[in-house]
């Protein structure tokens, strides 16, 4: 049981740190857009790189915090029936749905996206614009984000296992 708690702690703190640091990319995103608007409208000299840098920052922002959002229970669910179940039944149900729905999808995407990222790195794939944004970086974000999500999934399942063992909710 102690080992389980230890694993949970490690995973949770990884996603907590990654999420909190990654979250600050929203500031970069805001500044990038303001820079683009000012350089284009005030100085009439748009840059060729902001447009794609903006989508790259955006995609990094919401992908990298996925595991953190799962940890923080921010990923919404429908609680119509769920709320009426006992803590133990909830835990059993969660473990089942994590194995039937969560892991196949997350791990499937994780492994396939690794392959895609590797291929992209192999040709140093860029976008077809003049700037030639590094597509291989964008494609690398997917396995990283889904890796973090699958880690968090393990932690969530272990939390339910502890509920079944101890009969109470896991609290840090």
């Amino acid at each position, binding site marked *: 049981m102690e080992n389980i708690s230890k694993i949970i702690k490690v995973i949770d703190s990884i996603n907590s740190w990654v999420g909190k640091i*990654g979250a600050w990319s929203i500031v970069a995103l805001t500044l990038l*857009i303001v820079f683009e608007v000012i350089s284009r409208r005030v100085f009439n000299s748009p840059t060729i790189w902001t447009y794609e840098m903006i989508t790259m920052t955006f995609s990094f922002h919401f992908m990298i915090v996925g595991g953190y959002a*799962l940890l923080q229970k921010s990923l919404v669910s429908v609680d119509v029936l769920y709320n009426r179940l006992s803590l133990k039944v909830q835990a059993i149900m969660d473990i089942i749905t994590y194995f039937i*729905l969560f892991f196949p999808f997350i791990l499937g995407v994780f492994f396939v996206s690794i392959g895609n990222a590797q291929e992209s790195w192999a040709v140093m794939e860029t976008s077809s614009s003049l700037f030639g944004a590094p597509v291989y970086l*964008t494609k690398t974000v997917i396995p990283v984000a889904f890796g973090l999500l699958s880690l968090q999934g393990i932690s969530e399942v272990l939390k339910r296992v502890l509920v079944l063992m101890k009969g109470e909710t896991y609290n840090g």
Partner: protein
Amino acid sequence: MAEILAILLFVGLIVGLATGHPVAFVLGGLALIFGVIGWGFETINIFVNGILGIMDNYTLVAIPLFVFMANLLGGSKIAEGLFESLRYLFGRMRGGIAFSIVIVSTILAATTGVVGASVVTMGVLGMPVLMKYGYDKSLSTGVIASGGTLGILIPPSIMLIVMGAQAQVSVGDLFKSSLIPGLLLAFLYCVYVLFICWKNPEKGPALTAEEAAEMPVRKRITGSLVNLVPPLILIMAVLGTIYMGIATPTEASGVGAFVAFLMTIGYGKFSFKMLSNAVYDTAKTTAMVLIIMIGATAFASMFLGLNGDKVIQNFVEAFGLGQWGIFTFMMILVFILGMFIDWVGIVMIVFPIFMPIIRTYDFDMIWVVTCIALLLQTSFLTPPFGHALFYTKGVVGDEIPTVTIYRGVIPFIIIIILVLILAAIFPQLILWLPSVF
């Protein structure tokens, strides 16, 4: 085979959502199971590509930025000041805050065409105030969800641009034709809010007599002016940059976030703690919205990949429906599909099947497309799957159960259908504006 898989996919969605698993992974998980059975393991490539498509989608950049703006305004209490002074301004009138939320939603709708952005923004800004003053939870969440959904009907709207290209009608005309129905919806939402609060005072408590007595009317007006200035500056910054052509609607969201940030400093509300809280909350909410989108995209691509649209096509061909029969059938289908998938999927299924048939009758295509756009408002609100429902739930968290939100949106769904029937009886509601401008 295709029929069975398509139907099982929908049944699976209802069962999956009921288990209380995160919506995003119910959608993704089902897409994977059905994709692998009906297609093969290649199907996962489709999901990865779908994720890349979302990551590359410039329009969606507005979501984190509007959410960031809302969190800055919320965290610095600037938003609270706005709604509070509006509350004093409305005085003894019941439902004042809910009413002003519909108004602010309508203004926000004119700046963005991304529902995720507007629902979440209104939720973050409005929900704390509604709860603080004891508004009914169903009514509050209903107002937030349906008000936020107006963004995709009132121009600018990416939905109308996509529909215009798919149906081969003028987008300029669609922007004009959907304005009156959109404003009519907003107006009826207001009427409903005021009516229900007038009938049930506990749903939208007005200023108490003591509160009213404490604050003389003159002070209420001056106080409102002070509190209304920052949001007005913000609206000017966002709307102004869009309509003067300085920024795209997407860029305007960044300008909005930046101006909100400057205002927290200008009003002396800035602290590192406030900023970091806004940053973390933004990340969590943005992930919530976009990861649902990842699941929904996988789900829709599997429905289409397993030829779910052919099932509908065969169904349509099997019935020899007349002009109004086919129109009614199409609208019912849009409504039912709206319970399960989002507008992009619906447009992709419905338009290629129905538009060639509809065009053979003497319908005004602008009217037909606007009716669909109007009805698609329900797709965000109808259970079990509705983006606006989930976004609202995501913002309010565990404090308010999903059922309360489901109950809250029902009156608004009825209003949408009512307006649709009105538009069918009086086509001029849709066709007048494009005909005069």
